[in-house]
């Protein structure tokens, strides 16, 4: 029954976009306004209406004006809560949307940043069957993280998000669709096991010790330390001279990962293997370079380099 309804709805949205308010992808930021907020009574609201009717008939039957006044007051308050529900969404703005990193098959984290000029409570953001509740205060943006399931690597367009609220009494449900025109990049899933890359251990070039480039710590000055490593600013706040201690050189050889070396595999298998190697290199804190068709990434290390390489892998056709 539910499936049939959903099918019908999908057809209706396709055929009658104006009627069903099917929202095409639109660029951020998205501000909610009256033409895109819909409101219907919730199940509880309908039940409460029945209760109000019973109370009304009872009060009229017993000719009891005090009870009638109470019923009218309760009814009017319920009706007024509809406007409050609407106002809870009206003017809310989705400023930007940041995606995290995830490999295919895992959920990717989306962080939506909502902004509002007045405080709002109990707004819920739905993605498929997952719902997150959040509140916005009038000053800072509210960051809401969602988990979007992924299936395959590559660019994946964002689905429609539903923003809804039943604030304040739960009798009405106001909602609006958000369909940001944005895609997220899903990284390839690395293969489980496989051979290690051909190490170029003999290459003396890669064996040479070199200073790391990243600042690791500050230590006391020892005779013989190069003058340019002295940290002058921190030293000014101490009695002794402090010296910038750089990361010690790696003893592991550099990996040169190359698409062309992987013969006899189809594209996806190559990508999976390269992804695994990238992971291993990152885990062993090696420096590595990556050659892909149309994209040659030079040697490097660190998380940014890793992300660059994974993005390049994910973005392969």
């Amino acid at each position, binding site marked *: 029954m539910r499936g049939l309804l959903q099918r019908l709805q999908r057809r209706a949205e396709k055929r009658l976009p104006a009627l069903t308010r099917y929202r095409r992808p639109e660029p951020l930021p998205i501000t909610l306004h009256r033409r895109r907020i819909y409101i219907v009574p919730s199940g509880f609201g309908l039940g409460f209406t029945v209760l109000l009717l019973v109370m009304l008939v009872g009060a009229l039957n017993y000719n009891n004006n005090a009870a009638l*006044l109470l019923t009218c007051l309760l*009814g009017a308050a319920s009706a007024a809560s509809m406007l409050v529900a609407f106002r809870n969404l009206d003017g809310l703005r989705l400023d930007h949307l940041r995606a995290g990193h995830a490999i295919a098959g895992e959920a990717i984290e989306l962080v939506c940043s909502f902004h509002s000029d007045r405080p709002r409570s109990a707004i819920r953001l739905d993605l498929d069957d997952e719902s997150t509740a959040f509140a916005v205060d009038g000053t800072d943006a509210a960051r809401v993280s969602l988990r979007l399931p992924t299936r395959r690597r590559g660019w994946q367009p964002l689905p429609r998000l539903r923003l809804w609220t039943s604030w304040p009494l739960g009798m009405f449900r106001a909602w609006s669709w958000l369909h940001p025109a944005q895609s997220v990049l899903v990284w390839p899933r690395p293969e489980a096991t496989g051979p290690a890359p051909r190490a170029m251990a003999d290459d003396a070039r890669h064996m040479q010790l070199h200073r790391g480039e990243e600042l690791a710590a500050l230590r006391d000055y020892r005779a013989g330390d190069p003058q340019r490593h002295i940290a002058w600013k921190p030293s000014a706040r101490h009695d002794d001279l402090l010296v910038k201690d750089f990361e010690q050189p790696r003893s592991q050889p550099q990996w040169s990962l190359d698409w062309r070396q992987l013969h006899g595999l189809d594209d996806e298998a190559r990508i999976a293997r390269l992804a695994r190697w990238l992971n291993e290199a990152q885990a062993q804190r090696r420096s590595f370079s990556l050659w892909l068709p149309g994209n040659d990434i030079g040697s490097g290390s660190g998380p940014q380099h890793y992300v660059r390489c994974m993005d390049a892998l994910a973005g392969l056709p």
Partner: protein
Amino acid sequence: MIGRKPPKPAQVALTQRAFDLLCLSATFVLAVNASHLPWWLNAALAVILGGRWWQRRRRPGRVPQAIKLPLLTLLTLAIIAYYGNLFGRAPGTALGIGLLVLKLLETETLRDVRVGVGFACFTLMTALLFDQGMVSTLVVALGLVPALATLRALEPAQAPSGMARSFMPALGLLAAALPLALLAFVLVPRLGSPLWGAPGRDQARTGLSDRMSPGAFTELLTDDHPAMRVTFDGEPPPPDQRYFRAFVMSRYDGVSWSYADVAHAAPVPLEVEQAIGYRISLLPTHRRVLPTLDVPIDAPAGAVMRRDHVVVAGRPVDDALNYALSSATRYRLEPQLDARPQRWLQLPARFNPRTLTLGQSWRERHGSDDAAIVREALALFHDGGFRYTLAPAPLGRDAMDDFLFDTREGYCEHYSSAFTVLMRAAGIPARVVTGYQGGYWNKLGNYLLVRNSDAHAWSEVWLADRGWVRVDPTAAVRPERVSLGAAAAAGDQLDWYRRDWLQQFRNRWDIVNRWWDQGVVAFDALRQRGLLTPFGIRDTDTRTLGVLLAIGSSLFIAIGLAWALRRRQPRDPLREALRTLERKLARQRIVRRTGEGPQHYLSRAARALPTQRSQLTELMQQYLELCYASDEPAPESVHAFRRAVRDFRVGNVVK
């Protein structure tokens, strides 16, 4: 408008706050309904409620079925045993409140709480079926606040706030809803006749009864609920003439006097010398008799006048009733006694021998001078050491003998009863009349407030040529009872809250209750039909009411929508200050043209007002600096600019 079904919310844990608020709502319901539930049910429900609250605080979870089901059975059986059935107003209310409290035992999900809130709203309303006074209505309406706060507490992701603060939004919502509620209240078409059985009799409140035995009034005399309010055409009668007759009692069986309702006898003749018109608004008595001032000349619509000018309504007064009447204040009632005068001389055999002997001795002493016998009796009460008290000693089998010769203390019932027995013993036709006497004259509202505690009993004796004459033996003992009212006569025998100044305040405050009773409680189908009379529409029918309701609701919806759709523009103090300056200059006919920049405009103004050229130039410089020199102008400079604009005075143009 097609929305997908929302994903099933995972079983959201119920917050302690929401549960506390629900318990508070249930407590409120119990409190407002407490007065008409049996005390044991109140106590049991309060214990269950408190126990459940305590239990859930320690360890959240449902109460096991093994406890719930027996409690439910017990509740149902207890209600059936006490009320006789499960349906109807009183047992239905008891059952509803019981179910609400038992529902709390299994409340662990949002749905349970919502059902509980619905129940609470409904049972709040049932409290009003028993008492629709202004104060109770207000209190019950306040009971909606925790109920709405409960619903609000169910919503996830809220800014944390204290318990007390969580009531404010609910209160605000109710306040905002009040205009629409009042509109709906006035315009919802009332039913001319009930859809199902009329409300059951409510005998809880004491009232005048058609039987009177000395000592039975005590409950009534200490009940100071209003009984009726009277407005007079013209001046009100003086305090000692404010006798409101209800029952005329002829039968005495040695214990009590009783009224015999004879349906098929025409009213006895009445010769009117002076009459007064008045309106009575009678609060529900659940009896058929309508009190009237002195001797009524005719009966109001829907009521008939019995033989002795007792006015009886067609059905019991279960709702407030208004009726207009005219009564004789100087009159001769039944100048010729009818064929059976022994009805007024009847005395039970073998009761009160000493009293009978006393009455007969008076007859022998005064011969046929009935008036002298009456005077003799009044003198006995006045000088015989009798005392007026609301707590007299109990009387034995020969009640009148005990009263007249032993205890010599009592109140109106004792005196009127003893007097009537004495008169009958002396052979004078006499009877006891009950009703109200006195009342508080509210100057502000020009009406007489009569409370239940103003209930009174007096006598009437038939004297040749004068007909039935009212004699109030209580006045002989305690003249204040008649001239100042029941509270004054009771002296210090009453509760603290009925003392002088407080009683005065309560009497004055009654005008509000009267307004409520007349304006709200008594606003029925008839009054509603006459709603539009000031606008020339005599009879407002249901359709007109519906149309008006629709129009009014649309108006409120429009106002509400305007509020909801209003987008507040971010305030720009700088721009506002410039607007102020523009307004000031516009008074000198220097109006900013469309599309004219501030620099051009202010330069023009400076040229037009040579006396203030330097000031205006200075302002212009400031404005331009603040506007364009930096992205965020310093608040102090903006403030200085606003002050400069405020202090700027446009002088007269010298031409």
